[in-house]
């Protein structure tokens, strides 16, 4: 690893910090009122980590119930609430804050800016997201109180009407769900506006669009997608609330309303949403893999085009979640084709990552371990996605455990793995100390073991006819052994995650000092101290290539000569 002396001159402010930290109350106050993108980014990340643990705990409860058939660990009502909350939590309170947190922290640093374009909007967005989550979780104790898991939503994270209409969902669980997500949705859109404005308007001198780090490109695409992705969900939830409280009939079958309309609206949100979640994972891989292979990313323009292509095509595939609802065969065929096509730019990215590693000098520190596992796991997940895109086969696989296995392969095997790699990579920058490598490797290997135990074997009950959303299943259908293995894998993943949490806390106090550039990397965030001062750079950077620090460290062979 490179040491911390770099020829980047006064980009690092060497004046000793004059202020002290103040009382504990003053410190908390500074975090509560902050508009600094770094603090907000870390708050988003901490929020996501908390809900990762909560959502993971919910998953363990589910897996205990499903470990054996006809189990009595959770009643059907509680089970239905827990799996709904697990899904809703992981997508909206873990996934979205995580990607926004990383974007918030990294984008201004990587473009050489002082902060986001709209710092106060940034703070507003965070607090709206936080409020939405708190409101959602209040549902556990609101209404009837704690018994039977309260009024927590219990209708799957899809909220399909007419089940969520007043006639079938009495009580307020549907309202908690809709209102919490509407509120946090406003925060998400605010964050997207900020990312776009920052990327387009606040790049430092010399950083043309085609000299931005790929992480910034991908977050730009993601922000653009968020604008047109979250809004359909917000619109549909407003319509649901109009139905529930103003006597509307959007999804009221008695008045001629069509449930299939909700499905279209939800999936017009829902499918691009999963690309919103995965593209930032690609962004991390795009930064980590080159640095640890000691080579520039292979095919930067192709990667930009592929990212934009994925974003665009993913807006046209939504009804592959609806192959079984009775659309005309021509419509089904269209979505088979569009879904297959979105796999092409995705595959291009995988090939480019491998080509980046080809001919390199790969160092397998923990960030690289996670990102390498990501490549092969994402490959597998993408291929099961291709299987699911084959509409007739989808008629068998839809809503079975095969689908659950597929999307967890993407969500955990690709997204969580990459973000864990991102944590190990940027924690030194954020905190100023390295995470422990030994604990990191324990975390990695245990997590790999648990992940594969759970999600590889989970495909099998799906092929054997086990549907999802069931609180128990019939014995004698051949599902028992697989469910048991899946559940045990979940426990192993929980242990691995606890090791990670311990590492985060332990290294905060005892980790070795990181210095500005512990990984010998090439993008601008490594040109300032760890952690960066509030204003990021002592003087505005000027860049001439995609890897400004490579140019400085290798003046005999700068990138700017080749771009």
């Amino acid at each position, binding site marked *: 690893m490179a040491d911390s002396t770099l020829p980047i001159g006064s980009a690092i402010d060497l004046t000793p910090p004059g202020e002290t930290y103040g009382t504990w109350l003053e410190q908390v106050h500074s975090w509560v009122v902050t508009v600094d993108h770094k603090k907000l980014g870390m708050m988003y990340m901490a929020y996501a980590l908390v809900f990762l643990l909560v959502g993971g705990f919910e998953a363990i409860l589910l897996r205990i119930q499903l470990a054996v058939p*006809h189990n009595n660990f959770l009643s*059907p*009502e509680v089970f*239905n609430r827990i799996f709904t909350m697990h899904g809703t939590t992981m997508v909206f309170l873990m996934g979205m804050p995580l990607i926004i947190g990383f974007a918030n922290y990294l984008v201004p640093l990587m473009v050489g800016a002082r902060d986001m374009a709209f710092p106060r909007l940034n703070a507003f967005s965070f607090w709206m997201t936080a409020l939405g989550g708190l409101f959602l979780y209040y549902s556990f104790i609101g209404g009837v109180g704690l018994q039977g898991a309260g009024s927590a939503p219990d*209708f799957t994270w899809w909220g*399909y009407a*007419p*089940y969520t209409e007043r006639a*079938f969902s009495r009580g307020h669980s549907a309202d908690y769900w809709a209102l919490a997500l509407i509120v946090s949705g406003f925060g998400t859109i605010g964050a997207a506006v900020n990312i776009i404005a920052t990327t387009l308007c606040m790049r430092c001198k010399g950083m043309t669009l085609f000299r931005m780090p790929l992480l910034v490109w991908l977050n730009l695409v993601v922000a653009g997608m968020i604008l047109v992705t979250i809004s359909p969900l917000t619109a549909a939830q407003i319509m649901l609330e109009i139905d529930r409280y103003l006597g509307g009939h959007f999804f009221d*079958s008695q008045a001629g309303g069509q*449930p*299939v309309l909700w499905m279209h609206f939800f999936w017009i949100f829902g499918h691009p949403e999963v690309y919103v979640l995965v593209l930032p994972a690609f962004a991390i891989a795009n930064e980590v893999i080159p640095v640890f*292979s*000691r*080579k*520039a990313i*292979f*095919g*930067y323009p*192709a990667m930009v085009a592929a990212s934009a292509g994925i974003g665009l095509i993913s807006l046209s595939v939504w009804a592959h979640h609806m192959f*079984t*609802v009775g659309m005309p*065969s021509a419509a089904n*065929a269209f979505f*088979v084709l569009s879904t297959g096509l979105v796999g*092409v730019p995705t*595959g*291009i990215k995988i*090939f480019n990552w*491998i*080509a980046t590693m*080809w*001919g390199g*000098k*790969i160092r397998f520190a923990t960030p690289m371990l996670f990102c390498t596992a990501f*490549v092969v796991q994402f*490959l*597998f997940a993408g*291929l099961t996605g291709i*299987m699911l895109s*084959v*509409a*007739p*086969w*989808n*008629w*068998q696989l*839809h*809503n*079975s455990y095969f689908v659950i296995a597929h999307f967890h392969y993407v969500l955990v095997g690709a997204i969580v793995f990459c973000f864990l790699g991102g944590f190990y990579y940027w924690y030194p920058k954020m905190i100023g100390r390295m995470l422990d490598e030994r604990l990191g490797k324990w975390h990695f290997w245990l997590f790999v073991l648990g992940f594969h135990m759970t999600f590889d074997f989970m495909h099998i009950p799906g*092929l*054997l*006819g086990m549907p999802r*959303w069931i*609180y128990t*299943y*019939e*014995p*004698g*259908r051949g599902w028992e052994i697989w469910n048991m293995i899946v559940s045990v894998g979940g426990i192993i993943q929980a242990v691995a995650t606890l090791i990670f949490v311990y590492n985060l806390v332990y290294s905060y106090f005892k980790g070795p000092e990181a210095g500005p550039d512990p990984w010998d990397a090439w993008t601008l965030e490594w040109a300032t101290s760890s952690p960066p001062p509030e204003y990021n750079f002592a003087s505005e950077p000027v860049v001439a290539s995609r890897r400004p620090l490579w140019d400085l460290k290798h003046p005999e062979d700068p990138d700017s000569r080749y771009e």
Partner: protein
Amino acid sequence: MSRRWLQASEPRQAAYALLLLLSCAGHAAWGAPTDQVVYQTPSIYQTHSGPARMIEHLSFFVIELTAAIFIVVASLLVYVIVRYRQRDPNDDSEPPQIYGSTQIELAWTVIPILIVVVLFLTTARILFAIQDQKMPAAAIDADVIGHQYWWEFRYSKFGFTTANELHVPLSSEQAPMITSLNLLSADVDHSFWVPALFGKIDSIPNQVNHMWFNPDKAGLYVGQCAQFCGVQHAKMLLRVYVQTPEEFAAWVKNQRQPSVQDPAVADGRQLFESQACISCHVVRGTAAQGKFGPDLTHFMSRDTLASGAADNTPANLRLWIKDPDYVKPGSLMPAMQLSDEQIDKIAAYLTTLK
């Protein structure tokens, strides 16, 4: 309180032994074969019908294709990890920086597009073959209506309605017979899935979906609802009995009869007709004409009750009437608040409805 899962925890063999006993008790028109083959594991790879088999073969093609892609790409990755690992930890020199190659990018763009096109054409062929199949006039036609948490089967051509257990005739090469189903819903979204026989199709309110299958092996096939529909979604089970044409005809003949009027249980029938039971259930030939719950005209011709939540035994029946929430917590059948004596009478009546 611990919930021993009723007598359904008995091995299935014992349950069928009980059924054998009942069937031997003398109603030949009942139609259940005594050497019933049960396809216990609803695997999508143990197919016994045209559409399911087409899907199975298509899936093999897709698996071969994706497996090939996986092996190639994963091998490259493994090779790269092994070959280009940094050997000397003190080596600080950087490898040659390669920024890209237009030819390679083109190659691995064009080839995947071709693969997608091939996959799409193969898929489209099967998709249209299954979805746009014309129904012959002689097809067995039935309406499947999803309810929370049971299935209604209306054989309108034959003039009767039954619930939860679908009987269809065998389709052989000599005598091909398609079963054509229209799927509707009375309340929320459901999905009709028996993996061995067909891919699922949803039953959605305000919409009529259509599907068909032609099973080629007699036996009992199991499935269940595959779209979350509420608290007892997990227990909205399905049983499809594929029968020889003779058995099927006998079953239809029995189902078309009005309900059995056994004088021995006349007091039970009177009690039944005086309770709120009749506002939800139909028993043809009596005052019970309610449409909310399953048709009970030939209740005893079914192997299970509560849409598969429990085996159809007298003890389970009594338990179900006394406390439905014990058998299927959250089902929409209310506890009727009857005395044990009343329940015995009604149960005795219902057990005559063969």
